[in-house]
C-alpha cells in the first residue's frame, strides 16, 4: 500500500456517514454473534449425549469420530443392507454423521470386507481393522429378561416381527451374497434362539468349526464366541435358556433386530460411547 492512502482515509467524513459506518459495524457484530451462537448450539446434544448413537463399524470413540467425520455419507452408499443413516439437526455437531439403528436394520456383515470402513475418506471409520470380529460398535445386553422367549421356555413359530418389517439379513442357505428380507423367512424353533442363529460372529465361528471359513479365508474366523444359549434351572421343571453375551460380541445389532418380542428383549449398549 502506498503512503498516499493515509491522508485520503483520514479526511473528515460527515457525521451521517460515520453513523452509518457505526451501525454497519454493530450489525456485523450482531450477525457474527448470531451465526456463531447457532453453530455453538450444536454443542448441546453431543455434550449431553441426548441420544447416544451406534456408529458404523470401525468408528473411533465418539468425540474423535465427530472430529474426523467429514459427513459425506459414502459409508451409507456402500452398505449392502442399507443399515446406515445420517444424523439430523437435532444431533448438533453430529448433523450429517452416520449412525445405525439396530432395531430397524442391523449391520449383518454381509459385505465381508467392511466396505463402510474402506469407503471412509477420513479415517473416522478406522482403516486399521479388516474383519467383522475386530469391530466394536457396542455390546449386546439382555435388557428385558422377562420378555425373552427362551428364558420363558417358549419357542417361536412364524415370521419375525411381522409381514411389514423391512429389515434384511443375509441367510447363507438362501443366498450367499444378497441379503433378503427377514419377513420372507418362516421360523419354527422349539426354543427361541433367533438371536444366536442370526449372530454374524456365531455364523462365522460355526463355519470355521466346520472347516469352511467364509470366503476360504481363515483370517475371517472370530477368535471368540459372541452369544450362546445357556440352560437355566429355575426349579419348575421347565426347559429354560438364557442368551448369554460373550467377549466376542461386536455390537452389530443382529440379535436386537431379529428379537421377536416387542420391545426387543436384547439390545445393544453403546460401549464405545460409554468408554469415551
Amino acid at each position: 500500500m502506498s503512503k498516499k492512502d493515509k491522508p485520503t482515509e483520514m479526511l473528515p467524513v460527515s457525521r451521517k456517514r460515520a453513523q452509518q459506518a457505526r451501525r454497519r459495524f454493530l450489525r456485523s457484530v450482531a450477525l457474527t454473534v448470531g451465526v456463531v451462537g447457532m453453530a455453538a448450539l450444536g454443542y448441546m446434544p453431543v455434550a449431553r449425549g441426548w441420544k447416544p448413537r451406534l456408529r458404523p463399524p470401525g468408528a473411533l470413540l465418539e468425540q474423535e469420530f465427530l472430529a474426523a467425520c467429514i459427513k459425506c455419507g459414502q459409508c451409507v452408499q456402500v452398505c449392502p443392507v442399507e443399515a446406515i443413516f445420517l444424523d439430523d439437526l437435532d444431533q448438533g455437531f453430529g448433523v450429517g454423521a452416520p449412525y445405525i439403528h439396530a432395531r430397524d436394520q442391523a449391520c449383518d456383515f454381509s459385505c465381508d470386507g467392511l466396505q463402510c470402513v474402506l469407503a471412509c475418506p477420513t479415517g473416522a471409520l478406522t482403516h486399521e481393522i479388516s474383519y467383522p470380529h475386530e469391530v466394536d460398535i457396542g455390546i449386546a445386553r439382555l435388557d428385558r429378561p422377562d420378555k425373552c422367549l427362551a428364558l420363558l421356555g417358549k419357542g417361536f413359530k412364524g415370521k419375525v416381527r411381522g409381514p411389514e418389517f423391512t429389515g434384511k439379513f443375509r441367510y447363507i442357505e438362501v443366498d450367499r451374497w444378497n441379503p433378503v428380507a427377514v419377513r420372507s423367512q418362516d421360523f419354527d424353533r422349539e426354543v427361541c434362539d433367533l438371536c444366536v442363529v442370526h449372530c454374524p460372529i456365531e455364523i462365522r465361528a460355526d463355519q470355521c468349526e466346520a472347516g469352511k471359513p467364509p470366503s476360504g479365508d481363515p483370517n475371517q474366523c472370530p477368535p471368540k464366541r459372541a452369544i450362546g444359549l445357556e440352560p437355566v434351572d429355575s426349579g419348575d421343571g421347565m426347559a429354560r435358556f438364557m442368551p448369554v453375551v460373550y467377549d466376542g460380541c461386536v455390537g452389530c445389532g443382529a440379535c436386537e433386530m431379529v428379537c421377536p418380542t416387542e420391545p426387543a428383549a436384547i439390545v445393544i449398549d453403546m460401549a464405545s460411547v460409554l468408554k469415551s
Partner: protein
Amino acid sequence: MCYIGQHLAELLGREPRKPDNEEIAPQAQEIHFYKKGQVFDAKAAAEEHQRLKSNKWRNIRWATLLAVNLLFVLSYSLDIQLLEGALTASRFAGFHMADLNSALQVMLAFKEVLINLLIGTVTVFILWFFLGGRTFCSWVCPYHLVAELAEKLHLKLVEKKIIKGIDFHRGTRTAFYVIFAVLTLASGYTVFESVSPTGILSRAIIYGPGLALIWVGVLLLFEVVASRRAWCRYVCPIGMTYGFVGAASPLRIRYNLVNCQHEGECRKVCLVPHVLDTVIKGRARDVEVPIGADCTRCGLCVDVCPSGSLRYEFKFGGGARVTATEQP
C-alpha cells in the same frame, strides 16, 4: 502493488478505492481522459441492453450446477457409482475428492490427516486452482442456486419499496473464517459443518430431506427480507477458501476499458460488486484488468455487458502487473 495482493485484500474485506493517477497505466489514463467529457446516454444504453440481452452463461452455469448435483443423486439412487458421496467429500470414478473447507475443518478438529483425505484435497485444490476464484460457489454449490432465486425476490421487494435491504461489513466473513477455525481447533468438532447450508443441502438432495432444511430456510428468509445474499457475502468460509486457492488462476473474467460505457448494469447483477469496482469511470488501472479473487466467475456480468467489455479469459500470468509508479 500487484493485482493479486489487491485482490486478496478485497477478498478479506477491504473496500476498493479509487486509484491515484500514478497507479494508472499511461494508456489507461489517456482513455480515461477522453471518456471524461463523454455524455452518457442512458436511454440508448438501456435500449442496447434490451437488444443484446442474453442468458447464455447463466443457463450454462445452471445446467452445470444441476448436472453435478444430479450426478451425485443418480450415483446413489441408481447405483451408477460415478460420483459417490456428497459435496463435502466424494469419489469421482473411484478417485478421492474432498471439499477444501470441509477437509480443513476435519484436519483442525481431528489433528490427523489420512492419506485418502490428502489425495482428495490435493486433487480438488488443483481443480479449483485452474478453474479459479470462487467458481465452486456459482457453478457447483446448491445453496448458491436457491440463494440466487432468493436474491431475485429480495431485489423485487426492494424495488417495490416493500423492504429496505441492509448490508454488513465484508470483513465479517474474514472474522467468521477465523472464528470457525479457532472454534474447530479448540473444540475438536467440525463446528461450521453443523450450520453449513452447502453440506446440509447437498446431503438433503442425495440422502433425503431432514430437519436441517429448516436452518437453510431461515437463511433464505433472512436473505429475502433483510440482506441480499448475506450468507455467501458475509459468512461462508467455503467461498473464502476457494477465493484464496483460485487467486492466481488462469481462468477469470477480463475487463477491457476501451468500449465500456460505464453504465453499471454489470455491478447491479454482480453477487460481489466490489470486484467490479474497476469498471467505474476513471478507476481502471490498465486497459485490460483481470477481475479479482472474490469473483465467482458466474458470468452474469458477461451476459449483461452489451459492449463485450467483460469476457471470460484463460491465460497464465498477467495477474501480477507492475503499476506505472513502480516502472523505471
